[in-house]
């Protein structure tokens, strides 16, 4: 029987094996891919076994560090299972892309990506604050090394900025976790269930800042651009696709249920920041000069929007936010693959070096347009469905909030169209004109295609996802909603 613990352990162990055993170059990459595929299969198994009812399922709960009252308690509900599934998918694609891109020291890079996956699983499944923290901060380690070793030319400052920034928030949260765990009524107890409602305002904000940085929520987004710009595409995909979701997920699955009173009291803060961030990111994405910049700022916008959705403390907000997390994960990962492909083929992601690539490259054009259109939430896309839910929630919160947020959608249309045009349209110019890259095919396409297909699937029947997460999401915010009198 595969348990959640196995799910976490398999990629972790595989990572260690890959690091230690000297495999031949390609073999390591394929092995990692195989492992991640197996994990993905197991996750799909979980999805089938999952019952869309309240509460957490598939729990593993054993003592871990007895003297500290730390337990290894992992379990999933609909929301976390959705995130785990998307993590498994994106990791697989990232490994595939890395294999295609022929990264040097492939065994190490693959191992680190698998390690990230394991940490992310832990974040999404942990029901113990200590374990949660281990995952939340631990995932920085492989990402850090990936950034340091395989990063772009500006990786030095990027690494410093990213790690210091995110670690700051995380460490603040550590204080909060310690408070919750050590002041438990009967001895130290880090279980999340035991921490509900015990934290004060400062603990709440310690958690919130950590999550806001990771998400990233405006105005704590300074690390995003360097991180996304300097990491290799598959790492950027994992980073923007799922690692950042850890923050938003934690808002929904940790912060809101653990601090119902504060969540209700300070919801307006996050709604305000989310709104500003949504508009801010959208507006600034419009002025970026390269593909990564646009994806980075659109991520800021989207993540702020997700946080906004979470703090609406309503069905629409929470389900929409979960859904949007999945969508944005798929889209930003795929966009990074496209950008990464462009960079390998053209040697630059700068808009001034691109253009006219739609000619004679139907696959690239189709993929880019599908992704772009999904990103700008063209009605009928899965992003539209999720954004629709969040906006509806915003509208239910207050009509003017819905109205303001709507502005962001228009801005999103503007920057995504600019992205598509800059890559695909006009005459071939710059390096793209000189190098005349081939069409997107085989390896890179295989990495992108699953994401696109899942997006299309979710567009056709988004209820397949929302039905599964609805109950869980409702459970997460219901206490806070009650506090808020909603």
């Amino acid at each position: 029987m595969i348990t959640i613990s196995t799910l976490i352990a398999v990629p972790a162990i595989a990572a260690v094996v890959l690091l230690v055993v000297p495999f031949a170059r390609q073999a390591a990459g394929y092995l990692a891919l195989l492992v991640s595929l197996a994990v993905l299969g197991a996750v799909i198994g979980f999805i089938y076994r999952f019952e869309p009812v309240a509460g957490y399922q598939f729990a593993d709960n054993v003592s871990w560090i007895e003297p500290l009252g730390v337990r290894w308690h992992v379990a999933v509900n609909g929301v976390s299972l959705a995130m785990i599934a998307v993590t498994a998918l994106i990791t697989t694609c990232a490994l595939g892309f890395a294999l295609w891109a022929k990264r040097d020291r492939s065994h190490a890079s693959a191992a680190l990506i698998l390690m990230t996956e394991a940490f992310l699983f832990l974040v999404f499944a942990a029901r113990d604050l200590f374990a949660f923290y281990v995952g939340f901060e631990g995932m920085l380690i492989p990402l850090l090394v990936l950034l340091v070793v395989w990063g772009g030319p500006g990786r030095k400052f990027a690494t410093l900025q990213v790690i210091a920034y995110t670690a700051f928030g995380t460490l603040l949260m550590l204080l909060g976790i310690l408070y919750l765990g050590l002041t438990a009524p009967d001895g130290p107890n880090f279980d999340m269930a035991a921490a509900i409602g015990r934290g004060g305002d400062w603990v709440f904000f310690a958690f919130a800042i950590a999550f806001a940085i990771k998400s990233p929520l405006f105005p704590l987004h300074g690390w995003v651009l360097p991180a996304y710009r300097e990491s290799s595409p598959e790492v950027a995909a994992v980073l923007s696709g799922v690692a950042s979701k850890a923050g938003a997920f934690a808002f929904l699955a940790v912060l809101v249920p653990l601090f119902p009173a504060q969540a209700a009291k300070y919801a307006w803060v996050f709604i305000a920041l989310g709104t500003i961030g949504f508009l801010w990111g959208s507006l600034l994405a419009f002025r970026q000069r390269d593909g990564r910049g646009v994806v980075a700022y659109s991520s800021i916008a989207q993540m702020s929007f997700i946080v906004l959705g979470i703090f609406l403390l309503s069905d629409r907000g929470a389900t929409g936010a979960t859904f949007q997390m999945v969508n944005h994960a798929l889209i930003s990962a795929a966009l990074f693959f496209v950008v990464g492909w462009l960079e390998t083929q053209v040697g630059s992601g700068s808009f001034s070096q691109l253009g006219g690539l739609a000619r004679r490259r139907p696959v690239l054009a189709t993929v880019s347009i599908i992704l772009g259109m999904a990103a700008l939430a063209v009605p009928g896309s899965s992003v539209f469905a999720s954004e629709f839910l969040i906006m509806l929630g915003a509208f239910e919160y207050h009509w003017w909030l819905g109205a303001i947020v709507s502005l962001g959608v228009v801005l999103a249309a503007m920057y995504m169209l600019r992205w598509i045009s800059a890559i695909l349209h006009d005459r071939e110019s710059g390096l793209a004109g000189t190098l005349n890259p081939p069409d997107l095919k085989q390896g890179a396409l295989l990495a992108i295609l699953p994401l696109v297909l899942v997006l299309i699937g979710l567009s056709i029947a988004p209820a397949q996802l929302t039905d599964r997460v609805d109950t869980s999401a409702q459970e997460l915010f219901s206490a806070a909603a009650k506090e808020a009198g909603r």
Partner: protein
Amino acid sequence: MIKAPDVNWLAIAPMMTLMIGAFVLLLLASFIRGRDRGLGTVVGIIALLASAGFAINLWSEPATTTMAGALQIDQLTQVVTVLIAGCGILTLLVAFGWNRMRENGAEFVALLLLIAAGMDLIAASNSFVTLFVALELFSLSLYVLCAFDGKSKASLESGFKYLVLGTIGSMVLVYGAAFLYGATGSFGFEAINTALSKAGSGDALVILGTVLVLIGLAFKIGVMPFHMWVADVYEGAPTSVTGFMSAATKIAAFVALARVLLDALPAMRDTWAPALIIIAVVTMILGNISALVQTNLKRMLAYASVGAAGFGLIAIIVGGAAGTRGLIFYLVAYAPMAIGAFAVISLHERDHKGIATLDSIRGWGFQRPVAAVSMVVFLLGFAGFPLTVGFIGKFVVLGSAVEGNYTWLGVVAVVASVISLGYLLRIMLAMFDRGAKSGVMMAAAPGIGSLNLAILLCLALVLIGGILPGLGLDWAADAAKSLAAGR
């Protein structure tokens, strides 16, 4: 007829083993010439293992005092003994390939054993007299070890600086002890505690004594503003010694501080707590900030250890069961990381045949991936990342702060920790700098095997301690009970 005091030989066996080991080694070395290195290492490791063995053997024994009450043999002593023995063994492995070991290996190992004995004595000390002699035993030997590399002027310079400043520190400590003696009539910790808890804490003489003692010990720990020696000495001393110092000295000095403040001077908390808070805050922030601008790795890590010492002070300030356990575990956790990091630097110095700087290690990580990855783990441990023992150390200390309503100190520690990332990451970045052409020639330097072994041992300890720290925490909790505050 003077009746000599009873001696519990079993209880003092760990220290005795070390001292006897030192004598025997020197004796043997005078007969067996030219085999200094192997002989020293073997005897040293045997002695250290034996001392650790004796200490473990004593673990379940109840706490006793011996040598006419001069020594207090309890679980804290045992933990420290085992730790110091571990540090010693690792240091011997690190030092094995070092040139000086061929010439004066026996002396080196003998001094190391004496230092270890001194440190064990500190952990067992029950009065200022014992504390002082133990402190001097290890300090004086350490001055010698720092200056051991006679060919290097930097080494001599560091030894001399350490000596001058260290002596002032010792004098301040004794001076303070004298005032406490004058006020209470005794050097014994328990007697002082009894007298002070009766008399109250307002007496200027006692305050004077407390402050001077505090400063003397603060000097030994190397916290601001009494840290000025640290960077220079760490940089100048032979790297194996630096590693040993950063781990073992810290343990000894912290245990001394804990014994003095928590056992002898709990009544003076109003005096020393504010001082320690100021020291801790300043040290954590400025120590790490100073490290930020360094380019010499040993120096950088020296400042890092200053910062880490400030962090350890939090646990003493908080006190209580949580604080003392936190402190002891933090020391346990810190040791393998520090020794490991300096071992890697040592390896690099041998590869590079020169000092380790951010420039010299550029790209080195690709040549020695195992060592470099281990270094990354150690550095992440310093920064307190999960799955390293450093995280658990940080966890328990911060936990004690939060529990003891010193959360704001925790926030300062967090800020300091983030600053520390600034330089820790720079080391990693430099090691894995793809662009740089490493000028290092990978000559087959001697003794790399034992060095690698030491690094891997440290790595294993750091990781195991990070993933399954339960046992260590139990030990720390038991050892904490040896302190009045820990009960």
